[in-house]
Structures are given as C-alpha cells and as structure tokens.
C-alpha cells in the first residue's frame, strides 16, 4: 500500500441479496491522479463509485480516506463531489445558485459565494450563462455547470460517472481535453467512469479494467495496451489476435508454444509449465508482412483473404497456410502495401516482445 495513496479500498465488496455484484476488491488511488474505471455494462463501475461517494454502503470491507475508514461517514460529510451521469442539476435554481449550492449549505457568506461562483464559472467558460435556468442550456453547457458545481467546494476527490456519455462525438472529444486540462490545473484526484476504451486511454494516468464485479487489471494505458493481463482485457481493450497453444520445450531447452502459428519461441517464464494451455495475444499492428520466402525467426506463411481499406491504415485478414482455417488480423499503413490483393501469399512476422502470454 503506497504511502501517498489518498483513498484505499480494502476488501470492499457489494452484494444485493445473494448476488455479489462486486467481489472483494482492493484498490489504492494516489493523490492527484486521473484514474478511469473501464468495463462493460453491469461490471460494477457505478457500484464502486457510489460506495466511494457514500450513496451505497459496502457489504464488507473498508474504505480508507487518508488512512481513516469512512464507511460510516454520511455522504454530506465526505470531502468528495460527484458529477452525475444525468448531471442532476436542480431545475428550479439558476446556474449561479446551482453552482453555489455546496457553499450555501455550508453557510458561507453570500458575498464570498458570489465571488467564488463567478471564479468557477469563468473556469468552465459559462460566465455569461449565470442567470439561466438549466433547461435553457445545451447538453454540453449543463455538463460544465455540473462540473463547476462539483469543484467549487474544492473536494479532495472528484467522482465522475460517465459524464460524457450523452454528448456527441465532437463535443465529447473537446470535453475530454477540457477535463484533463482542468484536472491538471486544480491538481485534484479524478475518478472517472467510462465504458469507452478510447476515452480511458486518452485521459487516464491509470486505468482500472473491470469485468463481472472484479478488477481484471490496473495499469497505465500503455501497460494495459502492451501487456493485457487476461484474455478479457486483451479482447476488450483494443483489437487483438488471440491464439491458443500448448507450452512445450524444444531441443535447446527453450520454452515454446505449439499453436496455429507453428512453434513460437517465447521468453523463459517460470510460470510456463510444460503441457499447460495458454493463449497468446498479438495486436494487429504488431504483425508485419514480409515477402514470401524470407526467413525470419518468428514468422508464419499465410494467404491474404481480404483487404479492408480504412484510410491511413488497412485491415488485412490472413489465413495461416498449414492450418488453412486459422485467421489472424493485421493492420498496416495503407501506403506500405499498395498492391496487396486477395489470394497473395505472404509471410507474417512479429517481434517476440510483442507477444503477450495469457494463462
């Protein structure tokens, strides 16, 4: 458990009646980091966030804020603020009153509230909309009001539950930049839920990948992309070719995996027991095509089955020659192979380092 963790979940679980929607989970969140929680629908993302916010009580476990268990601290006393998916703005209050609400219920003086609201509205670029009611704002503007309302009390952690889900693609991208920038500026921990992996990659310092009420992997976007920790992560996070195989040992005593790609030599890894079944993952963009007949150590002969033009890159489906029916996908810069066509014989090659072995 790192010293600088601001929030620690220790064995936190949640069950509704007999259904465990979150298995006992440990998670350390560091001060000032932008962490995204990524996972398919129903994986328990909102459940985790609601327990941190105090809207739902965990069935077991501790939630430590700066080392102190806050499970019994009611929502209104927790130094966190939430941006809700539906924004949850108060429709009977103008923008200024919505944003100033947190200060008002704390009994801050009117003049001070007015000053801070003006300051925060400036940050979210809504200074001219202060006197509007929420229903007279666009979706993106409402979103920024919700954000302003959440940061005005200078929370130690900002919780965001898919705040961008309702916005169109372009607005979404600009809000992503805005949020990331804001987070850097106010140096506050953000816990951001999304089920969009592109969003997670572009925003997060660290990503928590969840599935079926369980954390599958925690790591930087780069780590998770390069080294998916499970078959689920490899599938969910970007595209991957998944190739099943069996661990063997060759004559030289090296570990290798017998698979559709032939015998693939892999770095020695103590956890690879001879005879065990594994899955290898390799990204489409990490497979290179080399001319037929070239001899590269890690390669396999293949036939082009289809070529799909996607703009800067092309997606190529290959069938592996000896097996005939095992397909892999390759992503290549379109300009590198202008004349590739269906039926061409090629050799697909990869660097050993680009292979990830999943158990």
């Amino acid at each position, binding site marked *: 458990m790192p010293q600088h963790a601001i929030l620690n979940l220790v064995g936190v679980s949640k069950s509704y009646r007999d259904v465990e929607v979150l298995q006992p989970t440990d998670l350390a969140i560091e001060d000032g980091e932008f962490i995204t929680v990524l996972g398919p629908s129903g994986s328990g993302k909102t459940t985790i966030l609601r327990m941190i916010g105090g809207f739902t009580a965990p069935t077991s476990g501790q939630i430590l804020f700066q080392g102190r268990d806050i499970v019994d601290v009611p*929502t209104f006393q927790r130094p966190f603020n939430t941006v809700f998916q539906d924004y949850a703005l108060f429709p009977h209050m103008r923008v200024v009153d919505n944003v100033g609400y947190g200060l008002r219920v704390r009994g801050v003086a009117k003049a001070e509230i007015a000053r801070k609201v003006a300051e925060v509205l400036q940050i979210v670029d809504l200074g001219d909309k202060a006197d509007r009611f929420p229903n007279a704002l666009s979706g993106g503007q409402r979103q920024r009001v919700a954000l302003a309302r959440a940061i005005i009390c200078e929370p130690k952690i900002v919780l965001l539950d898919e705040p961008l889900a309702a916005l169109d693609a372009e607005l979404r991208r600009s809000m992503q930049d805005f949020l990331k920038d804001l987070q850097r500026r106010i140096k506050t921990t953000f816990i951001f839920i999304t089920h969009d992996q592109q969003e997670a990659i572009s925003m997060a310092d660290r990503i928590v990948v969840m599935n079926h009420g369980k954390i599958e992997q925690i790591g930087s976007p780069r780590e998770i992309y390069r080294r998916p920790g499970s078959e689920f992560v490899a599938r969910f996070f970007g595209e991957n070719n998944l190739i099943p195989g069996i661990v063997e040992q060759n004559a030289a005593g090296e570990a290798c995996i017998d698979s559709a790609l032939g015998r693939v030599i892999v770095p020695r890894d103590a956890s690879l027991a001879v005879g065990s079944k594994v899955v290898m993952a390799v990204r489409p963009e990490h497979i290179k095509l080399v001319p037929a007949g070239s001899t590269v150590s890690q390669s396999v002969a293949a036939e082009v089955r289809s070529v799909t033009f996607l703009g800067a890159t092309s997606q190529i489906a290959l069938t592996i020659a000896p097996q005939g029916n095992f397909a892999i996908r390759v992503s290549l810069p379109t300009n590198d192979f202008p004349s590739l066509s269906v039926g061409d014989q090629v050799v697909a090659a990869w660097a050993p380092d680009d292979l990830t072995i999943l158990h």
Partner: protein
Amino acid sequence: MTRSERITIAVLWVFASFVFVLLYGPAVLVATLSFFDMDRGQIAWGSFSLAHYASLLENKSILAALGNTLMVAFTSVAIATILALGLAYYMRTGERRGRAYVEFIIFLPFVLPAIITGISLLVAFREVGVDRGLTTIAIGHIVVVIAIIYRMVMVRLEALETSQLEASADLGATQFQTFRLVVVPQLASAMVTGALLAFTISFDETLVTFFLAGSDPTLPLRLWAMMRVGFSPEINALVTIVLLGTMVLATLGALSLRRGIAKERA
C-alpha cells in the same frame, strides 16, 4: 360551407347553449335574486338593493356555520397537507416496506362510500370516547382529503430524480436542507393544487360531516336543515358569495397547475 354543415353547426350551437344554460342558469338566477325582491313569483326589477347581503350579515346562525366550515377546511387541509407531504417524502426516499399497503389505506376513504367512512369514524370516536364537534369533523375531513393531496405530491415526487437528492447530499446538504432547498420548492405547485382541491372537497363535504357533527353545524349541514323550513332570500346572497369564492379558488388552482406543468415541460 355546405348547407348540411351549416345546419349541423346551428344545431350544435343550440345544444351547447342549452347545456350552458342548464349548468349556469341556476347560478345566474341565484346571483340575480340576491339583488332583487320577489313579487308574486316575479322578479321585482325596481327593487335592486343589497338588502339581502345586509340581512345575511345579521343572520348569526348562517355566519357561524360558514365560519365553522372555513375553520374546518383550513385546519384539515393544512394538517392533511403536512401529513401527506411528510408521508410521501418518507415513502419516496428509500425502499419502504409496506408502501403499497399504506397507500391503499390512505386511498380507501376516497373511494369508499362516504356513508361508510362517516359511520366507521362515528363508531370509532364513540368507542374512544371523543365527543362530536368541530374537531371530529376536521379529523373526518383529513381522512377524506389526505389521499388527493398525497397523490398530487407523490406524482411530483416520483418525477424528481433520486440523483437530485443524492447530488444535494453530495454537495454537503443535510437531509433537512435537501428537503427545504431541493424538494419543497419543486413540490410547491403540486401542494397548492392539491390543497385547493382538498379545500373545495372539505368545503361542501356533507355526508361524513353529518355523522361527525356535534352542536356546531357546518354550512352544508345548516343549509340542509334550512331546506325543511324553506330558504330565506339571504341564502341567495350567501350562494353568490360562495360561488365567487369558488371561482377564485378554481382559477388559482388552474393557474398553479398550469405553472407546474409548464415548469415540467421546460
């Protein structure tokens, strides 16, 4: 416009006028009579005066009955509104067991024949040993009107997203602050509408009241009693005043309802 269309429209007009006269004719007649005297079954047009209004002011028993009615209506509506609001908020802010049963019990008097409600309350009061009077009437009216206010408030509360309550708590508000700053302002128009409706129900409630009244009658009971001996002309003045009051209330109710709807739409 074809000939047959013209005839249809003419017939519809006649029909509409007939309905209109049937509905409002008596009211207009009463209002007119409140300013004139009758002379051998004819309105004496030369006799315009406010004399009936003056004698109404003299008629202590009717004024007392009107006073009783207003007092009962105000107290029962006020108490029913507070009860309905508290109950609805409690039911809304969590998974409450038995909510369906409680609501059933609240709505029961609203659909039950008033005579049953009246008799049951009468028996209950007698068993407990409470003397009949304005208090028992007010309690009876609370039982009768609470459903309508509860319903009005609940419909609005259900439309209020849970996330708003959560957002309020999240921003540091206590339960009470949330109630005062987020819930009540958004319920105001529903409460006003419900209270106005309840007020009109309480105002002319007769059957339940009949069983619960002691020696102080309400206005409907007083009028009922007068029917046997015949009305004096100041009743026309009274009816006219009540009519005006009702129209003002109905207009207020409609306005508040419309404001509520407009807000929801926006």
